[in-house]
């Protein structure tokens, strides 16, 4: 009998030891997230907010791409669908954030369902192309909507208030976004640990076998497309409130690629990977800015934005070639070494 690479208790989430470890890690993560803005400066609170928000968008994308195997560049478009649906609901019906997010999620689910339809026939690069087309179509539609509803500057969001409580401060904004990110993480974890999670993995790995197990491949794919887009659209409302405005110029293909970079760098099909990737990619501009200040902003550092794009590109190539399992792969092998006693 061959020995598995992963020890049995790691490979099976049903084993109690792994369960205890997971719960412990989750408690630790929550403690760090809650304590963070209380100990670090406002600047780093902003950085942390950016990272947590990025995670809330990257994690649903990772569900779609990493777990279900559906490559998509549609996430920027789903964000703008969410932001503008949220803006419309907020301004037209004077609704508060939770309602706006729910309606945006419903709109995201519908649009995601439609964008996901080609996935029943296309896969890989061809599917990616169809999502690219969807990106341009949706952003164009958003531009028309923006012009008719909000004017050329886009939608300006008021400071966030929920039930009369002002949540627009840096710290409260951080907590709101972190709570939302935790909810996203919890939903994805629960689904992936359920029978539907197994079905999603089976559809990615062996669609013929999945069908032979009575799993509807089409329905599973469309469920994931809808769910993932719903979560991204809801995050889009939060992002727009956080940024204070939503304008079509923000939702570029570059933005979409940024989230793809996060899941590739962090690790496909892993929630921890989404988190690591979100932190990593969020820190790139921070590091570039620091370098720029430290070295007087000469040479390539005079163009920090272009430099970031180049760095993203290089990082993606490096990870795809050298570390396909992403940053989470380092964490996993380190954990394995620790457990095996060095």
């Amino acid at each position, binding site marked *: 009998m061959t020995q*598995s690479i992963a020890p049995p208790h790691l490979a099976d989430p049903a084993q109690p030891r792994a369960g205890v470890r997971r719960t412990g890690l989750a408690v630790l993560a929550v403690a760090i997230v809650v304590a963070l803005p209380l100990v670090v400066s406002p600047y780093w609170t902003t950085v942390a907010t950016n990272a947590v928000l990025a995670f809330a968008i990257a994690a649903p994308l990772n569900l779609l791409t990493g777990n279900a195997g559906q490559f998509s560049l549609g996430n920027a478009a789903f964000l703008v669908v969410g932001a503008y649906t949220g803006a419309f609901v907020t301004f037209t019906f004077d609704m508060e954030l939770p309602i706006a997010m729910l309606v945006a999620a419903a709109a995201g689910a519908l649009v995601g369902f439609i964008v996901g339809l080609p996935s029943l026939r296309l896969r890989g690069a061809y599917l990616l192309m169809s999502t690219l087309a969807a990106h341009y179509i949706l952003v164009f539609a958003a531009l028309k909507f923006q012009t008719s509803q909000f004017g050329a500057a886009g939608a300006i969001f008021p400071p966030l208030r929920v039930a009369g409580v002002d949540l627009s401060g840096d710290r409260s904004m951080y907590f709101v976004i972190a709570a939302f990110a935790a909810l996203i993480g919890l939903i994805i974890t629960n689904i992936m640990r359920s029978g539907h999670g197994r079905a999603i993995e089976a559809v990615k790995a062996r669609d013929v076998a999945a069908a*032979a197990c009575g799993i509807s491949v089409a329905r599973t794919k469309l469920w994931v497309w809808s769910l993932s887009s719903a979560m991204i659209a809801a995050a889009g409302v939060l992002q727009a409130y956080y940024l204070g405005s939503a304008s079509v110029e923000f939702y570029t293909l570059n933005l979409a690629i940024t989230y793809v970079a996060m899941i590739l760098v962090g690790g496909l099909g892993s929630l921890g990977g989404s988190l690591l990737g979100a932190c990593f990619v969020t820190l790139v501009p921070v590091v570039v800015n620091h370098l720029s200040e430290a070295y007087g902003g000469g040479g390539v550092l005079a163009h920090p934005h272009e430099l970031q794009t180049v760095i993203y590109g290089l990082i993606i190539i490096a990870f795809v070639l050298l570390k396909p399992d992403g940053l989470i792969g380092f964490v996993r092998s380190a954990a394995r070494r620790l457990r095996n006693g060095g």
Partner: protein
Amino acid sequence: MTGELVIDRLGLRFGGVVALREVSIRHHPDEVLGIIGPNGAGKTSLINAVTGIYPPSSGSVSYRGTPLTGRSPESIVATGIARTFQHNQLCGDLTVRENVLLGCHPRLGYGMGKAALGFGPARRAERRLRGEVEPLLELLNLGQVAAEQAHSLPYGLQKRVEMARALALRPTTLLLDEPAAGTSDEDRAALVRIIKHLRQEGACSVVLIEHDVGLVMEVSDRVAVLDWGECIMVDTPEAVAADARVLAAYLGVDDTPRDLAPSDSI
């Protein structure tokens, strides 16, 4: 008769290539039907046409009186037909237990919404299903490797996981596509034991596609012989073994050793 799989003048064509021509086979309830035939005879094509992977070009298939032709693979599974694959179709990154649990999918009993909630119905259902697959893992001697990732297992064990996954669907008819190909003598013995067990318990009828003629003769009640996409005879193992057409089609000249028989088909 209920439980009967009726393949009626089934034809399957890929462009100019005829994979199946007017194949008619009745598979009775509670029987083990062996299907043999040389490479490219259309054995796997037959299973693929029955299970809805390839839409047949002509003819029909019905199961327990329900027409299967034109239905999707997942709706054919719902009628009680499960299958294994000639080439490994396990999800390698999932554990053996999770692969077998995939076969419980039609009995999940909770939707995506309850799955997202995590606690409550979804957790109870998962506990119930995990209880259900344990006897299967034991029956197929997979208990010790249940927590291993499927891709880490040797080939013969992977074939057994495939069979466990198919049995987890609680089929009334099980289609096995070359379950013994490339496996050890020990795996082969286990296979014989399992097929005989299913036969004795009346758990499900079995259609067995196999190149190992000895194995087919040992466990089958009847044997169908395919050659160039046609079913040339269906009879008892003894009659098939003695038939001149079979010897000519499948075994070639009568002194060809069995282990020189081709071990792979489409």
